[in-house]
């Protein structure tokens, strides 16, 4: 489980929160990593893993709480899931560089959660909070069909 984000920019923490809850629900069969989104670190974070679920906030102009899912093996991440930054090499670039270097995991599933409020502060907006719950349920269903009905922790 890789949660990507910034815990001090409200909805930018969505990926971190979702990944933590997912890891808590899934137990000790999964490893949780929390990343800022810097590309080279991501290549290392997912090295050697069979299945990676990566969750990040999106800022693509859509309605807050919208969820998108993509599989890295299928092709480049859709534009909505690409991090646009001239200051860092981010998730989408890490996926493409991993593809070019043969350093993608067996399966890499990326969930994006559209954020609404990226101002400084701690705490998710309500639509994003609800989206986190949905993503955690969907991701649990992906990784362990037999525990798809497991209790999703509230915190």
């Amino acid at each position: 489980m890789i949660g990507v984000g910034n815990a001090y920019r409200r909805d930018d923490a969505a990926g971190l929160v979702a990944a933590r809850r997912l890891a808590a629900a899934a137990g000790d069969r999964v490893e949780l990593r929390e990343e800022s989104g810097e590309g080279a670190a991501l290549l290392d974070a997912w090295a050697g893993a069979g299945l990676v679920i990566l969750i990040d906030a999106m800022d693509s102009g859509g309605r807050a709480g919208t969820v998108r899912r993509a599989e890295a093996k299928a092709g480049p991440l859709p534009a909505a899931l690409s991090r646009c930054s001239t200051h860092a090499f981010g998730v989408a670039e890490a996926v493409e560089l991993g593809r070019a270097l043969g350093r993608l995991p067996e399966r890499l599933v990326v969930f994006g959660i559209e954020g609404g409020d990226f101002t400084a502060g701690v705490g998710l907006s309500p639509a994003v909070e609800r989206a986190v719950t949905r993503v955690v349920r969907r991701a649990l269903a992906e990784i362990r069909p037999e525990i798809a009905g497991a209790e999703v922790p509230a915190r």
Partner: protein
Amino acid sequence: MRARTRTIKVGALARVEGEGALYVRVKGDQVQEVRLDIYEPPRFFEAFLRGRRFTEAPDLTARICGICPVAYQMSACAAMEDACGVQVDDRIRALRRLLYCGEWMASHTLHIYMLHAPDFLGYDGVIPMARDHAPVVERGLQLKKVGNALMALVGGREVHPVNPRVGGFYRAPARREFAEVEERLRWARDAALETVRWVAGFPFPDFTQDYEFVSLRQAGEYPIDRGRIVSDRGLDIGVREYGEHFAEEQVPHSNALHARLRARGAYLVGPLARYSLNSDALSPLARDAAREAGLGPVCRNPFRSIVVRAVEVLYACDEALRLIGEYERPEPPAVEVPPRAGVGHGCTEAPRGLLYHRYAIGGDGDIAEAAIIPPTSQNQAQIEADLRRFVQASLALPDRELTWRCEQAIRNYDPCISCATHFLTLDIERA
């Protein structure tokens, strides 16, 4: 018959840090105007530092840049210690230099492999380059990681290190904690040598510029963390005299301030300047590699800056291993710095060049004023002058090719636009 106007515009420069654009206007066979437009929003650090405590300067200014935070921390510490009349001991100084080596490694390696090398090999970026040259790109990623590991060990964190403080560090590692990174640095030193050899073989345009080079100089060592400010045209001043010799100025087309030597105008800071003024102070290994790579004692071709950066990565690995070998744990990890009213100046060599900080603080330790002059600001005037000459010499090229070459030329300077706008679209108009 009216002379033809050509306009070349690059709206958003790629593979530079931050947001900038380039505009060139040519009439007939004369370049009329060259502008490096920095539209990255201004960030007003100098303003919001006022009223903060002097001890906060390293942490706040580190946020100016995600690639070179250590440089800001080191220049800030130097300036505050100067204001308060305190000098750190040699053990603390050595540990700061070691941290800085990690940053040089990480920053230069990122630039060499991911931002600049693709230009020389004909790729749009590192990803297409990685498809054809996977082992080489892997080497670059691993080399950068070793730099980051060194920063994490000494600085407490890879990005915006938390360990440096005015007076030294919050905690100094014990000698045995260096064992793992020392092992990785030995591999990194070999990888850095291979990097020099790799870039030395790139095709370089035959373009030289008659720069005034400006850097620090410190007897017996390649300049990183301290020294006097010197140039190859007679400048030799203490850091406190910076303001008497250099002026910062606002230009309409840029959110980044330009700087110039009051006496002579544009100048160049950064790897080419450091190398040309101090190549004799490199370690023997780095000096030999430089010579083998075809660099003389001075280098005036900005396209070869990639080779100079590679030599500096090699030097940083070599120097880091030397510092670890001679390491004595500073105890205590920091000296006391009681605040005192006054003005302090600090200058260190960020990966991109001279980084100057000046602070006025009150007797209570609150910052009254701040001035921060990053290397990319200092280079802006020279970058524009170089481009002007470069375009003038390349007018026979069609626009598309000329545009691409201009972008490549800008990447020679490894501009850090975030830094330059703390307080690339290429437009070539041919008429």
